[in-house]
């Protein structure tokens, strides 16, 4: 299916603030989703504050984990409507793409796809975690969420 102009990912300028804390972070290496792993049953979960375990697990030894910044596209969809509140943005983002990305840790996570056209959405392609500005607040800060874009490598 065709679509309009691709949503643009964030550049370097401006101060970025996550729309909600403890979901993703960034360092020199790039943007990483914040997951956690149970030391007993090995289950990865996201967000890290919504625990999940195998039945019978002792639930001991939970560690916070930054997921690899890259994964593979496991599914995708193109949305032809504006997401309703509580999604908050300051512009029309339709049509927007949502991808499900499989990380090497064995967990799939959904996110908005940016810097991409629909024809580049192919199952299995490498995707990189980035940030996406939802809106600029009154203090001039960019309020961001996590997003995915086709990996350069």
């Amino acid at each position, binding site marked *: *299916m065709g679509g309009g102009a691709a949503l643009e990912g964030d550049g370097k300028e401006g101060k970025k603030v996550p*729309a*909600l804390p403890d*979901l993703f972070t960034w360092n020199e290496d790039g943007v990483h989703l914040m997951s956690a792993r149970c030391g007993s049953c090995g*289950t990865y*979960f*996201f*967000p890290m*504050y*919504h625990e999940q*375990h*195998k*039945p019978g697990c002792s639930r001991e030894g939970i560690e916070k984990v930054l997921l690899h910044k890259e994964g593979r596209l*496991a*599914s*995708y*969809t*193109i*949305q*032809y*409507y504006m*997401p*309703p*509140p*509580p*999604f*908050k943005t300051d512009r029309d*983002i339709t049509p*927007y793409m*949502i991808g*499900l990305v*499989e*990380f090497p840790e*064995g*967990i*799939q*996570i*959904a*996110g*908005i796809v940016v810097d991409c056209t*629909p024809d580049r959405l192919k*199952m299995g392609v490498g995707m990189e975690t980035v940030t996406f500005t939802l809106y600029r607040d009154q203090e001039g800060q960019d309020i961001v*969420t*996590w997003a995915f874009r086709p990996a350069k490598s």
Partner: protein
Amino acid sequence: MGLHSWGKFPQKTFVDLGKEAIAKALSEARIEWKEIETICSGIYIWGGNAGHLSGQYLASVFGETGVPIVNVYNACATGASALRLAYLSIASGQVDVALAVGVDLSPEGFLTAKSDNPRQDRDVLRWRMVGMPNPTYWALECRKRMLKHGTTEEDLARVKVLLSQYGAQNPNARYKKVYTVEEVLTSKMVCDPLRLYEVCATSDGAAALILCAASKARQYTSKPVTIAATTIGSAIYGDPTLRISALSAPAKAEAPLLSESYSSSQQAYRLSGIGPEDIDILELPDNSSWHYLQYLETCGFCGDGEAERMLKDGETKIGGRIAVCPSGGFSSFGEAIGAQAVWQVAEVIMQLRGQCGPRQVEGAKVGMAQTYGLMGNSGTTILKV
């Protein structure tokens, strides 16, 4: 059983709808209100405190009698949970006559988050961070299926075409227009690969069922419909489905897709001794065309990847191997969360009684109603005559 037809009724309250469904059920069963020994009511989540106490509100209209009233919520399996509770109330020997009722008036537009605390409500996260309405989840699973099983756009359209033919003949349906494959394939793309007519709407509606102990049933009717099993299933660890509300799922499947519905249907088969091969009618939750195809497999009506062929070969038509959604399904009715599972059972009952006119499944003896619910819950009811 009694129904309030499905549609949009902005001038009505949930009590208006529920009252009509209950009044019809009482009159149809020839049972007096005072004979009802317990009320199991689906919680109407958009109705504030009143909606959470829907059973009490409805009881006060007919006259309070002091019987146990319990209100239950299990997302789209809310009605199935009310029904199971009514069934268990009788099976336990505590009562002989029970009322199960479900009512819903859907809000306009998308069904969105009901709290604003992301720490405890995943719904907040999915809306705020990704902008993911329910059909997004269905589209992601549908795309996976297309890659795995080669499902085509025509297969998805064919579901709507078939169901629209039944909906057109069902007086209680909201949508009564018959569609062609071409009309569906040129309808607006909503969440690629799913088009407008391949995703169900949200509706208002109400349904009520009166259950009675088998030992007493013949006091009221010469042709009782028997509940062979009514079950609730929850998800199984390792289910790879990206479940509505969640933002993550395991990459490696260690349990079946839609494991909550697999669980409820397997329980029902085991408890009833009835298997998919014995079932004449199946009301499944066709929230989208993907659901129609996937549920045939999840509930064991065909093997992995065979649903498209079943549909194409006419095996799921009235007169085919198994009549799937002869009511017209959610495709013709739309979702009414608290009411739909009770309504599905009511549709099966009408078929088993031979009351469905032009969309009657001839000689139907066994029927199954299957739900699907957000956050991993599901219900199955198998009925027979």
